[in-house]
């Protein structure tokens, strides 16, 4: 299989959206770890985001469909857990699109063993990490809830434009 065939497979994968955050493709999300030739088709290695993410099975189905349309029927999908997926694998382009979509992109996931990059609800435990508002860029924002519309997001509100917004948590 030629390199350009593999490139075709990668472009097919780039058209598969994350079902929960459709502005991101699974390539933007950083969950496709490798694509290799596998007989007449390809084998795709995917790492799941959250253990209980209900989108995981739908993503696998979408990958198979998209690859079949691009001429790779019966593609194999291998799930690998290690190294564990990190939001640091979302590229700059992905982060820009998240912001445009109204979701604050994740800060760096590199952190100490106990301090989390999301401010606690209790003032006693706030770490002071700033999550800029994706709408007006204000730094005067605060956490409303550790879990938003999905496990990967926290719910914030902006004290300047007064809009609520989702924050893609560092993971």
């Amino acid at each position, binding site marked *: 299989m030629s390199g350009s065939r593999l490139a075709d497979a990668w472009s097919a994968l780039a058209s598969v959206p994350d079902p929960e955050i459709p502005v991101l493709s699974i390539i933007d999300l950083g969950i496709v770890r490798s694509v290799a030739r596998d007989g007449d088709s390809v084998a795709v290695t995917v790492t*799941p985001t*959250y*253990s*209980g*993410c*209900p989108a995981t099975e739908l993503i696998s189905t979408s990958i198979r469909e998209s690859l079949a349309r691009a001429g790779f029927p019966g593609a194999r999908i291998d799930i690998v*857990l*290690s*190294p*564990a*997926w*990190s939001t640091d694998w979302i590229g700059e382009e992905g982060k820009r699109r998240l912001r445009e979509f109204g979701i604050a992109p994740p800060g760096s996931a590199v952190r100490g*063993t*106990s301090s*989390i990059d*999301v401010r*606690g*609800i*209790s003032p*006693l*435990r706030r770490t002071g990490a700033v999550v800029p508002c994706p709408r007006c860029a204000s730094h005067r924002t605060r956490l*409303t*809830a*550790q*879990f*938003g*519309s*999905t*496990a990967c997001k926290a*719910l914030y509100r902006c004290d300047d434009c007064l809009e609520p917004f989702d924050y893609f*948590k560092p*993971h």
Partner: protein
Amino acid sequence: MADTQRFEFLLRLGDSDLVLAQRLGEWVGKGPILEEDIALANVGLDLLGQARMWLTYAGEVEGAGRDEDALAYRRDVHQFRNALLCEQPNGNYADTTARQFLYDHWHVLMLRALGRSSDERIAAIAAKAAKEVDYHVERSTDWVIRLGDGTDISHERMQAAIDASWPYAGELFVADAVDEAMARDGVAPDLAALAAPWRAAVTAALADATLVVPTDDWAQRGGRQGKHTEHLGHLLTEMQFLQRAYPDARW
């Protein structure tokens, strides 16, 4: 023999997550505020995802052809190996919060240690799960502080909930032959060694919450060996109903 013990050990991890996930699911639609309703469902979903990975692996280690569903839906009370803490009823919101707080702080320590397991599959699952449980710890600890250091009523209920849950936490640090074998093989940490960091973290949070650390450390035991409180059977009747009434039903 080693595989039997590893199977038992994996059931303990998987069943605790599964049973607690089911408890949290009972709150869906009844949370005190919308954000908490969503948060409880999300924490439960994380735990359910982790339970699936542990139980799938348990079934493979056992080698008797049982998958995650067979283990979740086709075992009776005495075959479950979850910690007693996880099966305790939801009670009021302080009770649910106390149960989660005590479990989360143990869970994150356990998963970090398992991330260094000599069993690569266990290490991979644990490293992944630990990142999720970091957020569970943050959330439940915030709520203990917020309710403890809140109104007179919330303070009183939070203290009562911590006192009531405390006897069920001790079991998490008591090793039996299975745990000792796992520690010897480098699969899992020495459970007793998790007690000091757990107590330090819990004590610091309770101090911020203006709550008192219970002084009686007498612990209820048996869940991890299959001896449960009456609550687990009632939980299973609901969780397993569909597969019991309509065996092999599929979507």
